[in-house]
């Protein structure tokens, strides 16, 4: 078999290229090694921007496409209703709650379910201030939460004990790896004071935020 070589080039081609001997096509204008480098660069760009492309090199492109289309995912679900925590009974739980200085939910009154494909942080913050009866301004520090069961992860900022929250996120749990269906039980406590906490309707919201991130 004849190996194409410069000495065997006999056909003129456009652009000054040379043709292989005994065949009817011209040499490429660019060396094949340069094509490989260019393709690698394309893969890199695809990897960076997550764009799926089709290519004659089915094997390598397919691998890139399948993996590149998986974004970092974090899903947070919540169960439990605390909207009636302060609906106290007269001649019963009401007086006893004031006497002990607080009303406290069940240990698993709120359950957060964490699913993440990467490292994650779970934070909590106050969405706003208390809404209170009349002109009373109940301190936001009267709301406390604690993690009573974390599942996976490391409890942060002392959230294993009752802590107050701020309008900005306070990390309460974190983990350096992916997790699926990790249940986090949260207990809530509201401080009560006979002299301050007048009768009426109260409400405050806590926002729990899950962030999936680079480990």
């Amino acid at each position, binding site marked *: 078999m004849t190996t194409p070589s410069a000495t065997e080039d006999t056909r003129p081609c456009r652009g000054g290229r040379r043709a292989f001997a005994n065949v009817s096509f011209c040499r490429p204008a660019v060396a094949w090694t340069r094509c490989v480098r260019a393709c690698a660069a394309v893969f890199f760009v695809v*990897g960076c921007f997550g764009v799926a492309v089709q290519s004659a090199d089915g094997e390598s492109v397919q691998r890139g496409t399948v993996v590149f289309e998986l974004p970092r995912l974090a*899903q947070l679900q919540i169960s439990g209703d605390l909207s009636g925590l302060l609906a106290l009974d007269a001649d019963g739980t009401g*007086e006893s709650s004031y006497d002990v200085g607080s009303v406290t939910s069940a240990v698993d009154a709120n359950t957060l379910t964490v699913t993440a494909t990467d490292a994650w942080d779970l934070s909590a913050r106050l969405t706003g201030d208390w809404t209170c009866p009349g002109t009373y301004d109940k301190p936001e520090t009267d709301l406390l939460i604690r993690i009573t069961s974390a599942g996976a992860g490391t409890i942060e900022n002392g959230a294993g004990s009752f802590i107050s929250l701020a309008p900005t996120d306070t990390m309460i749990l974190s983990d350096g790896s992916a997790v699926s269906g990790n249940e986090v039980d949260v207990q809530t406590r509201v401080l009560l004071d006979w002299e301050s906490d007048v009768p009426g309707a109260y409400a405050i919201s806590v926002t729990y935020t899950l962030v999936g991130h680079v480990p």
Partner: protein
Amino acid sequence: MRYVAIAMGFVGLAAGMAFGADDVDTQNSTVGGTIPELCQIGIAGDLSALLTLAQDGAGETAYDAGYVESAAAATTLTLDANKQWSLGVNYSGAGWTAPGTYDKAESDLLIQITNTPTGTVQNSYDSYQTTSNSKTAMLSHTSGVSNNSVEIQTRVLLDWTQDIPGAYSITLVYTMETTP
């Protein structure tokens, strides 16, 4: 070189994952409810033997003085409320139970507040006053209160010529209520 291309693809993969955006998800939990008007009153002290007088001693002395009285803090009320409130007192039922047919006057029972609790004394109960069979205000306050201690002294008038020997009793009812 093909493997070089694949390797470069994985480099791209790694770079893509490393610089991919964080994902954020949030959920809210609302804590709330309506706190009702609440108040409670506690009582300590036992006066059931206040009239158990000793012969040849405290008995005669008490009759001579015209009364027997408890210690200043013999009855202590502890008050809690989450809004303005009032404390009242009345005697229960028909008043005294007395020996035989004797009808001891209910006005022979006097009480007074001896300490300075939170609130405003009503109807001069910071000195001895009688009670009636309907509630009479003793103390009130314009806001909530916690562990407000009210010390009450009790006096029973005695008269050599009327108060015959025998068993006597009367019950006082202290009532705390939140007010509009």
